[in-house]
C-alpha cells in the first residue's frame, strides 16, 4: 500500500464505535478515539471503566464485538498481538510476562523472529537501552532485577519492533517516584522521534504533566476528550467519576495516645521462594493515630500483614503486641478477641468468599469475636442467621453498600461496594486496633473516599489504625505518621506533614537505588 506515507498527516490510529460485549455487559460501548502521530495520549478512567478492554482490542488480545479500527487510515482487523506488532503497535502490560530464570536478552529474544541470534538481540537491546536512557544489562537474570528494571525490559522489547504506537498500561503503579520520572523522560524522547504513546492511567497528576491530550472513559463510554493541561484535577476527576469526590484529611488524628499495636524487632523468614522476608521490623501505632506504611508492591507488605494479623503467627511472642500484651504466637481470632480487626488486600478468596452471601462473609470474619451474638445451640455452634443478617443489614446501611437483593453473594458486588462491606464489617465492631492492607485497591473514587474517611474517623474516635498502601495520594489523605517499607525493612516513622513525595520516594528506593546504580554501570 504505497499511500501509507501520505496519510501520515491524518491520525495514526482512529477507533470508531468500538464495542466489546461480555454477555450483555458492555465493557466498551461505542468508543471513539483518535491518536495523532507524535503525541502522548492519555486514556483516563477508574478501575473497571473499560481501559484495559479497549487496549486489549487494539493489541489483538480481544476481538471487538462491533466497530472499526483504522490504522493510518486503513480499516484493519487485529486478531493477534503478532498482527498488532506487524502494524507497528507495541504494548507494555501492567503485569509483566517475563521468565524469571532467563536473562534479559533471552526474554527479549523469545518475542523476536527465531532467525535473529541471541548476540544480536543483546547488542540491539543494549543499544536501545542506551539511546532511550533505560539502563539495562542484557546478561542479567530477570529474577535479580527490580520491578522498574523489569518494566524497562518490556519497554525495550516493544521498542525493538520499531513501533509507531506504544501502549503502556498503568506503567507507574509499580514504580517509585524517581523511577517514574526516568520513565517520563524516555516517553518524551519517543515522542520527539515522532512516535505516539497511548498512556493509560488513573493518576491525574502524571497525565497533566506528560500528556498532550486525554480521553476519559467511564462505565465503558467516552465521557470526555480534552487537553489535560487545560483542565484542573477536579474537572478531570469529575469526568472520571461523574461527580465531585469528598476530600479526606487526617485532621484531628494525633500521636499522643497509648501504644495499642506494636511490632518489636519482628523478623520473619520468607515462606515461599516468591515471598519477601521481614527484617527487624519495629513499629508503634497509638490510639488516635493512623500510621501509614508506604512502599512499592512486593516489598513485604503482605508478609507484614500476615504477621500482624496472626494468619501466620510468628515464633517470638513479644514480636507483636496488641494493647501491650504479647500476641506473636497467637492466632488471628485470639487477636480479634483482644480488640483488633483486620482487612486484607485481596477481596476475593481472602477477605471474602465470592460465592457466599454477605451475611456468611460476616460470619467469616467475626465467628469468634461475636460468638455470643452469632452462635447458639451450645457445642453445636448453630449460626443464628437472624442476628447475622441484621448485622449485615446494619453494616450495609452504615457504609452505603449498593447491592442487588437483600443478601446477595459477595461476588456479585462491585469492587468498591464489596470493599465498603469488608471495611464496614470491622468498623462495626469498633476495633481498638485496625490493620488494613491496601484499603482502596481497585476501588472507585467515591467508595475510596468513603473508606478513607471512615479510617480517619475511627482513629479520631480513639482507635489505632495501621494502613498499608501503595497509593501515595491515599497515604497523604489519611496518615498521621508515615513509614516506608522496602525489601522487608521498615523505615522510621515520620510525621506526615513533614514528608514530601520525593522523600518517600527516596525511602522507597532504599536498596533499589543502589542496585540500579550497579545495573546502569553494567549496561554502559
Amino acid at each position, binding site marked *: 500500500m504505497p499511500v501509507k506515507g501520505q496519510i501520515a498527516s491524518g491520525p495514526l490510529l482512529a477507533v470508531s464505535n468500538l464495542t466489546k460485549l461480555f*454477555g450483555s455487559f458492555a465493557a466498551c460501548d461505542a468508543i471513539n478515539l483518535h491518536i495523532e502521530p507524535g503525541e502522548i495520549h492519555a486514556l483516563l478512567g477508574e478501575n473497571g471503566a473499560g481501559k484495559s478492554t479497549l487496549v486489549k482490542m487494539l493489541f489483538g488480545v480481544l476481538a471487538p464485538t462491533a466497530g472499526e479500527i483504522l490504522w493510518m487510515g486503513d480499516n484493519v482487523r487485529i486478531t493477534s498481538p503478532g498482527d498488532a506488532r506487524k502494524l507497528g503497535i507495541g504494548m507494555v502490560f501492567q503485569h509483566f510476562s517475563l521468565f524469571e530464570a532467563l536473562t534479559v536478552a533471552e526474554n527479549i529474544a523469545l518475542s523476536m523472529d527465531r532467525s535473529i541470534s541471541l548476540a544480536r538481540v543483546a547488542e540491539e537491546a543494549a543499544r536501545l537501552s542506551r539511546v532511550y536512557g533505560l539502563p539495562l544489562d542484557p546478561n542479567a537474570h530477570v529474577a535479580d532485577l527490580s520491578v522498574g528494571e523489569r518494566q524497562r525490559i518490556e519497554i525495550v522489547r516493544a521498542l525493538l519492533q520499531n513501533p509507531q504506537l506504544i501502549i503502556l498500561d498503568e506503567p507507574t503503579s509499580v514504580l517509585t517516584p524517581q523511577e517514574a520520572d526516568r520513565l517520563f523522560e524516555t516517553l518524551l524522547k519517543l515522542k520527539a522521534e515522532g512516535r505516539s504513546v497511548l498512556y493509560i492511567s488513573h493518576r491525574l497528576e502524571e497525565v497533566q504533566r506528560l500528556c498532550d491530550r486525554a480521553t476519559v472513559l467511564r462505565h465503558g463510554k467516552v465521557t470526555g476528550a480534552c487537553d489535560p493541561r487545560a483542565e484542573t484535577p477536579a474537572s478531570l476527576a469529575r469526568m472520571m467519576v461523574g461527580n465531585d469526590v469528598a476530600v479526606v484529611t487526617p485532621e484531628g488524628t494525633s500521636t499522643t495516645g497509648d501504644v495499642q499495636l506494636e511490632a518489636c524487632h519482628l523478623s520473619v523468614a520468607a515462606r515461599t521462594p516468591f515471598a519477601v522476608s521481614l527484617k527487624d521490623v519495629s513499629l508503634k501505632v497509638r490510639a488516635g493515630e493512623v500510621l501509614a506504611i508506604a512502599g512499592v508492591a512486593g516489598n513485604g507488605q503482605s508478609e507484614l500483614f500476615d504477621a500482624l494479623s496472626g494468619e501466620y503467627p510468628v515464633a517470638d511472642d513479644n514480636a507483636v503486641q496488641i494493647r501491650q500484651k504479647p500476641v506473636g504466637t497467637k492466632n*488471628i481470632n485470639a487477636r480479634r478477641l483482644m480488640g483488633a480487626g483486620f482487612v486484607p488486600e485481596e477481596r476475593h478468596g481472602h477477605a471474602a*468468599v465470592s460465592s457466599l452471601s454477605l451475611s456468611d462473609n460476616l*460470619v467469616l470474619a467475626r*465467628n469468634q469475636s461475636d460468638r455470643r451474638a452469632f*452462635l447458639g445451640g451450645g457445642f453445636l*455452634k*448453630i*449460626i443464628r442467621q437472624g442476628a447475622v443478617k441484621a448485622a449485615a443489614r446494619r453494616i450495609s446501611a452504615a457504609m452505603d453498600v449498593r447491592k442487588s437483593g437483600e443478601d446477595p453473594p459477595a461476588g456479585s458486588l462491585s469492587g468498591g461496594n464489596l470493599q465498603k462491606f469488608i471495611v464496614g464489617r470491622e468498623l462495626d465492631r469498633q476495633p481498638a486496633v485496625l490493620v488494613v492492607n491496601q484499603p482502596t485497591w481497585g476501588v472507585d473514587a467515591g467508595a475510596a473516599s468513603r473508606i478513607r474517611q471512615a479510617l480517619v474517623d475511627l482513629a479520631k474516635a480513639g482507635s489505632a489504625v495501621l494502613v498499608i498502601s501503595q497509593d501515595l495520594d491515599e497515604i497523604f489523605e489519611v496518615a498521621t505518621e508515615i513509614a516506608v517499607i522496602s525489601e522487608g525493612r521498615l523505615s522510621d516513622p515520620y510525621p506526615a506533614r513533614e514528608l514530601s513525595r520525593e522523600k518517600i520516594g527516596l525511602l522507597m528506593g532504599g536498596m533499589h537505588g543502589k542496585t540500579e546504580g550497579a545495573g546502569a554501570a553494567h549496561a554502559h
Partner: protein
Amino acid sequence: MRIELEKRPNVSALFSILSPFIAFALTIVFGGIMFALLGKNPAAALYSFFVEPLSEVWSLHELAIKAAPLILIGVGLSVCFRSNNWNIGAEGQFIMGAIAGSILPVVFYDWQSPLVLPLMLVLGMIGGAIFAAIPAFLKAHMNTNEILTSLMLVYVAQLFLDWLVRGPWRNPQGMNFPETRTFGADAILPEMLVSGRTHWGFAFAIIAALLVWFMMRYTLRGFEITVLGQSERAGRFAGFSSRRMIWFSMLFSGALAGLAGISEVSGAIQQLRPVISPGYGFTAIIVAFLGRLNPLGIIAAGLVLALTYLGGEAAQLSIGVSDKVTRVFQGLLLFFVLSCDTLIHYRIRVVRERFAALKTDEAH
C-alpha cells in the same frame, strides 16, 4: 459456526437442580444406544434394567441394602469433597472397617453379649478412620496428594482382606473355602422391617445423611467446611485451619465408610470373604456428585446407583448381557453429571458471526 461456552454472571439456580436430571436422561439415551448396538431391543432392555427391579417387594429390599453403603459413604465423601479434600479411597476404608469390626465375631467368636454388635460398629468406624488417617497424615504433614495415596491404599486393603480370609482368619470348619466363620447371632445387624431383608444399615445411612445435612446447613462446622473448600486463604482469615480440616474430613468420611463396611458384612454377608464390596466405595463418589454433594440429594442418588447394581443383575438374567453393563451405566452417569455441571456456570452459545466476518474480509 462454532459453539462457545459463555460464563454466566451468576450461578444458574435452575441448572444446578436440572443438571442431575439431564445427566440421568442422557445416560438413559446412551444406554439405549448401547443396548441397540448389542442387538437388544433398547426399550425392553432399559425396562428390565431400570423398572423391573422396582416391581417387587423383595427387590425393593435389595435396593435398600445396596443403597445403604452407597449413601453412608457418599455422605461422608460429600464432607470431604466440599472441604476440597479428595478422598478416593473409601473402598479401602470400607474394607478396613469391615475387618476391624469383624475382630469380635471372628477372633473372639465364643464371646456372646448384647455388647458385641455396638462394639463391632464402633470398631468398624475406628478401622475406617484409622485407614483414612494415613492419607490424612501424608497430606497434612508431607503435602502429599491424597487422591493418589488414598486410591493406592484401596489395593492394600483389598489384598490384606484376601490374605486374612485365606490365612489366619479362615474358617477351620469351612472346607478350606476362603471365608471366615459365619457370625454369631449377637454379631448380626438385625432386619429393620418384617417384610424383608433390609437391615439397620439403611437406617444408619438415612440418619447420617440427616445429621450431616443439619451440620452443613446450620452449624459453624458446616460453614468452616464450605469456606475452606472454597478458599483456604479465606478460611485462614476466618481462623479456620485447613490442616485440621484435612484430618476432620478424612477421619469423618473414613469412619462412615468403615461403618458402611461393618454394616454390610454384619447385616448382609454375615462373614468375611475375599471380596465384600462390588465397588461401593468408588460408586459412592458418583453418588456424592450426582447428589450435588448435598446429603439429601445423596439419599436419592444412592437409590439411583443402587438400582444400577440391581439392573446389572437383572440384565444378566433376563436379557443375557454381562453385568459389566452396571459399570458402563455408572461411568456414563458420572461422565454426564460432571459435564452437565458445566451448564451451571456457563451457557452454551452457537456463534455464526465468523461467517459474517469472512464476508466483510472479502469485501476489502
